[in-house]
């Protein structure tokens, strides 16, 4: 990678946020944090991330609504937005996709797999990278 991909992580729980951040930093990503949906919308505009990881259950406006708000902005229309969902149930995953997320990652996240999983969502990624 020429310059590290920037990941915006929107997650209200401090420890889970720290975990994702540290794993991604260690894997060579640039990480931007947001602790709420409102904050996430602002960070998405100002920091121009390459991908957004979005917790679904956020205080105030929830993950789905935050995603849909970001989608309506010029930068948000083609950026991958991936749901972080605590529910391992299929109906929740299907709901996330139906609501317009590009994908989902179930919690607990796999520390080993997370960097690769994120790379797969990035637009300029190809298998022989």
């Amino acid at each position: 990678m020429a310059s590290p991909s920037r990941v915006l992580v929107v997650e209200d729980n401090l420890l889970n946020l720290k975990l994702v951040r540290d794993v991604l930093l260690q894997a060579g990503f640039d990480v931007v944090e947001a602790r709420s949906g409102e904050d996430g919308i602002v960070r998405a505009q100002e920091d121009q991330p390459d991908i957004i990881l979005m917790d679904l259950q956020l205080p105030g406006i929830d993950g789905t609504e935050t995603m849909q708000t970001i989608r309506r902005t010029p930068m948000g229309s083609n950026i991958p937005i991936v749901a972080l969902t605590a529910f391992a149930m299929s109906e929740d995953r299907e709901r996330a996709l139906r609501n317009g997320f590009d994908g989902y990652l179930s919690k607990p996240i796999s520390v080993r797999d997370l960097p690769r999983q994120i790379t797969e969502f990035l637009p300029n990624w190809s298998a022989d990278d």
Partner: protein
Amino acid sequence: MSMPSAEDHRRLLRDYVDATEQFKATNEVLSALGRSTSDPDAVLDTVVKSARRLCRSHVAAIYLIEDGTFRLASSVGLSREFVRNITDFPMEVNRGTVIGRAAVERRVQKVPDVLTDTEFVRVDVQHLGGIRSSMSAPMLLDGEVVGGLSLYRTEVDPFDDREEALLESFAAQAAIVVRNVHLVRALEDRGAELARRLEQMEALSEVGQTVGSSLVLDEVLYNIIKNAVRFAGCDGGSVMEYLEEERCFSVRTAYGSSPELLARLRTIRIELETTLVGRAAREAHPVFVPDLSQVELDPHLRLLYDDGWRSVMAVPVLRGDRIIGALVVRRRSPGAFSEEAAEFLQTFASQSATAVYNAQLFHELEKKSAELEVMSQHKSDFLASMSHELRTPLNAVIGFSEVLLERLFGDLNERQDEYLRDILSSGQHLLALLNEILDLSKVEAGRMEVALSTFSVAATVEYAVSMVRERAARHSITVSQSIAPSVDQLTSDELRVRQVLVNLLSNAVKFTHDGGRVEVIAEPVRDELLITVRDTGQGIAMEDRERIFESFQQGPREAPKEEGTGLGLTLCRKIVTLLGGRIWLESELGHGSAFHVALPLGVPADTVDANAAESAEGREPVVVIIDDDRSSLDLLSAYLTGTGLRVVRARDGDEGLSDIHRLHPAAVVLDIRLPGTDGWMVLETLKATPVTREIPVIIVSILDEAARGLAAGAADYLTKPVSREDLTSVLRRLRVLPQADTALPSAHSGIVGRTAQD
């Protein structure tokens, strides 16, 4: 008010069933009474038969007192010899027999064993009849003992309180028969009035028959008041039920009254202490007001007066000493009520008591069910949010220990590595427990959704095996699978089937010694797919076989290599049941265990959602099912699996209506409680539209409003829970399905059992 428990609910249900049974018996008596006013013996025969059946006795007999002795009037179960003996040597009204004692004491007498009863003198009667446990009730008419109803068993098996209450009520019915006999005899002497009286008897009989033909209570109550009003020569009336807790009456239904009046009547509380109706109930006899303009008006009478009513009679509905409700009849003109009308209505009211009582019970039951439902909802909401709160920190525990174990931030020594693994596995264990608790609470709240799809059995087994392969390898356990060549696809909930298999397999690996074997076998057995997970572990003792399916019970005593959550098998059983299958266990201590799961194979149901159904249109007849509850939809669809019907599902009234217009189905299965456009509106729309008017609509609802449904044009009305047979027989009757049922696969009629609320 205190929250009801499940026990309350069961008790109430039992009372309701008891009352319904008794209701039927009463009705038989009423019907017999209506049929044969000139043949009272036939009516008494019905009473003794009902009493014998409901009180589980060998013999039941009614004796009438004539000249100071008991004359046998009707009996069932007595030998000819006994009858001859009791006719030649009748029992006397004294303490020497059970029935004599009942007449002397004027209340029910129960003797656990007449052989040990010191006062019992009729050894000949005991000997001829083999009497042991015995019970008798006096028949009282206007305070006078006119006879008795006697039961006995030929073994020592004392009668209980419930049976005592039943006997008392049957004796009261028998007394009514005697009263009616007297009435009829009096009538016969008064030729001019005969026709009119007979008309009244027919009114009673009509009530009896309505009650028998349906248990639709409002209809019954409506019939009661209609007949009461008609034959008392009045213009209108109402039936009230008594609310014991609130000490007031509430209007259930009315006849000859405007809807506005009925609505207003239903909003008021008619107090026991301060109203005319209350006075009638307190004094236990009819009370009337010939001219409302001449008296002080209570709120109920004020309402009637303002609506133009001028004379009123209130008749209490009593059951023994207990106030059940009241009948009120009224006229638009002032005037007294005749003695005859009062007498007639009192008889009428006593015969309506069971119907009104049933109405009360039924409503209490409905109310308690609704409360239980709300509580169960709260419980599962609580569990869902709890498990979210607990999972969030667990995710951090699991994640950070993984970060360290992955050596992302440097190397670890052996001890650190070991402890981190302990933290990680404890965290994962807790997480699994939370997920299972959440799943269980979903099943229990009836909220676990069954997502049917058709999937490969081999792939599912392979997936489950792959989940345990690593752990098995660590303990040198061989995991093999054998899938019969004829096994291909299964229509069920793939995710849930996987979950069950993973659970059984990880148990098998957990409880098998190092170097052992675990095997998965899938084979069709009749019309089921049988999946067996067999291990060479230590086996499970006979006495533990049921217990291990209960929450937090682990099987074998020997400490397993890894601990489980203790919920896995409970959940497995609930899921398998929800999928219409069975799970059981074969095991021998020391020789391993085999868990069997049988799932219905069946023909895949065409349970596609409406928008996906478009392309398959036009082949099979279509049935549109409209129900907002997913599990109910799944269940009803599953019932129609393999019937050759294509099922199109709609989750609300508007979606259903658009499906019906588009597909013109052979039948519609309609729930009433729907969000937005409810079932009544859907039905009304269909019946008001020429192109849809002829489509038969089967209402399937938790609400018991058959009369309203049928009146609104429904082809049939089923009250939930509905069995497969209920639904298919209606469809056969409507010729949506062929008349003969031979084409139907029978064995998976239990498919997709009810959600686990029962």
